[in-house]
């Protein structure tokens, strides 16, 4: 569309940047599937500008928590505030103003299979901002594809022609389409080889720093936790049993946390991170080694 349609466009909600301190606040959340309780009395606050890693054993409801926050799963009890708005009881119209401020990367990428990568990126743009011209949309899609870490010529490929790692990058490009303030990543490095995973970590950190994103990152990858997360939230026993930097979590003495961060794999990941610090490839004291990057 070359001419903007003001009447239609002005019905769209205002998208001011969120200035409060906690883009996501979860209080006393309870979710269940029939008899099986997933979360009970779960509280969690995500700070603005941080990369929060969410860990937990299989089946502890990490993905369910993410689905609850983005409104795909209705909780039984409790409140979830995103950008200060309770989304669990909001009408669909009220949530639109929140939806265009987050981007979600699903586990498998969840790309629309009949559209090219670039067209996938354009879907949210067209949905929320119909006034943008096709020319601009094409230009945006091209640079977002590169932002997502894909080669330029991947723009006109269909998802079925991409490898698993490239599909995740394409999914990231689509998640970044609206320049969100809040980014949800569900196991972004699962199924990637170590080199690709490390690159994806770097990409996430770089984007988060450059675009000022708040990232909610579900992961099993200990390297990711050590390398890029500001804080880590641990899900166990139906709730968040600890939030903080890894040293802080270890002080809490929770048995699962102990086992998780003192296992052989965790030690190996920690070793890699320390070596990277020594070589100067990671910024010393910026992330997990410091007690709290936000200084609170």
């Amino acid at each position: 569309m070359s001419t903007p349609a003001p009447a239609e466009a002005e019905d769209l909600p205002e998208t001011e940047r969120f200035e409060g301190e906690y883009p996501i606040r979860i209080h006393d959340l309870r979710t269940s599937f029939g008899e099986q309780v997933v979360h009970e009395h779960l509280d969690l606050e995500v700070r603005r500008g941080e990369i929060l890693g969410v860990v937990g054993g299989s089946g502890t409801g990490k993905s369910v928590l993410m689905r609850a926050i983005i409104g795909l799963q209705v909780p039984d009890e409790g409140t979830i505030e995103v950008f200060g708005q309770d989304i669990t009881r909001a009408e669909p119209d009220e949530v639109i103003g929140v939806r265009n401020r987050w981007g979600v990367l699903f586990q498998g990428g969840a790309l629309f299979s009949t559209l090219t990568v670039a067209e996938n990126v354009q879907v949210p743009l067209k949905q929320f901002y119909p006034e943008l011209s096709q020319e601009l949309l094409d230009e945006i899609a091209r640079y977002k594809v590169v932002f997502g870490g894909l080669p330029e010529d991947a723009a006109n490929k269909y998802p079925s022609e991409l490898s698993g790692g490239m599909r995740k990058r394409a999914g990231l490009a689509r998640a970044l389409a609206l320049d969100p303030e809040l980014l949800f990543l569900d196991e972004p490095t699962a199924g990637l080889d170590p080199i690709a995973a490390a690159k994806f970590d770097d990409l996430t950190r770089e984007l988060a720093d450059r675009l000022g994103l708040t990232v909610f990152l579900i992961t099993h990858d200990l390297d990711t936790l050590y390398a890029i997360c500001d804080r880590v939230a641990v899900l166990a026993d139906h709730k968040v049993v600890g939030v903080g930097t890894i040293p802080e979590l270890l002080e809490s003495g929770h048995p699962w946390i102990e086992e998780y961060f003192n296992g052989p794999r965790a030690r190996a990941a920690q070793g890699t991170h320390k070596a990277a610090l020594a070589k100067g490839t990671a910024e010393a004291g910026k992330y997990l080694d410091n007690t709290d990057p936000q200084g609170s």
Partner: protein
Amino acid sequence: MREWAEHSIHEAGGSLTVAISGPLRVSSIGKLDPQLRAMEEPVQTVDLSEVTEVDTVGAWVVQRFVEANNATVVGASEQARVLMESVREAQSSADVKRPRLPFFTRVPEFTGEKVVHWFQGVYGMFGFLGAVIIAFFGTIRHPGRFRGLALVRQMEMVGVSSLPIIGLMSFLIGIVIAQQGAVQLQQFGAETLTVNLVGRITLRELGVLMTAIMVAGRSGSAFAAQIGTMKLTEEVDAMRTIGVAPIEALVLPRILAAVLMMPLLGFFSSVVAIIGGAVIGDVMLGIPFLTFLARIQEVVPLHDFYVGMVKAPVFGLIVAVSGCHQGMLVKGNAEEVGLRTTQAVVQAIFMVIVLDAFFAVFFTEIGWG
């Protein structure tokens, strides 16, 4: 009310300055971008000091304008500079869509592709039929590999579960034939021949034909969708690696179920249609219900029944083979499952009707007229 990014033009000493104000965000850029693109005179300076916020889309719009005019940027915030640098590094000229050939090349190419695909399809279908026959004799030699439970399950799905819908359809068709036939035959005073009409046409043609169409829509499509989805989720590949032949485990039970159930369903359909006709005979023509049924035995030759029962398993085979074949051809994405399912049904119905025409001529020629 949304706040839009705006611009103003200042001229000083023969050089043009464009001053941009307001938020430079994806939500507010929609009006500014076409205005900047429409500008023709070269601009020397872009002033960003009045910009309140900026995101990558806003940075891109300014960056593109600056590059097109070879202008210098003044008053940019730290964030704006970083973002403009980022999008400048990330810009590319890649195609967004797949390039399309011009119309005059595309249409012949498309037609040619269709023709080639059609022949490949026929060829592939014969190949698939061959594989099924080999698997069939393979299971006869090794009866232990035969999936009895799967066969029974498929027989239930294809046969028992479709009884209500086939019954209802047949009953209504019987009513329509009897009622319409009676109206025409009454003009010759030959309304009693309605019995012949209903009895012969249902047993010989319609019972089996309508059932085959119904089974194609109900079970043929299900076969294609089930097997196609299993192909997508790599279940079929997993089977192969475990040493289970997908043809034996997935295809054979479905095809046998359709071949075995079709004659039964076709016969059931014919019987229900005759009952429908008999109801109309009773109500409209004054032929008592039981008399109608008794007359059927007298006027319908036994070979009409044979004609129907010979055709039924063949139709079942066609429906099941095209369903399973299309399912096994699925690869790539979810859209393909839908496409193949549609194709399975269309192909099955088409072939059933073509074959039915051949059968009609054939059986008349051998004296089963």
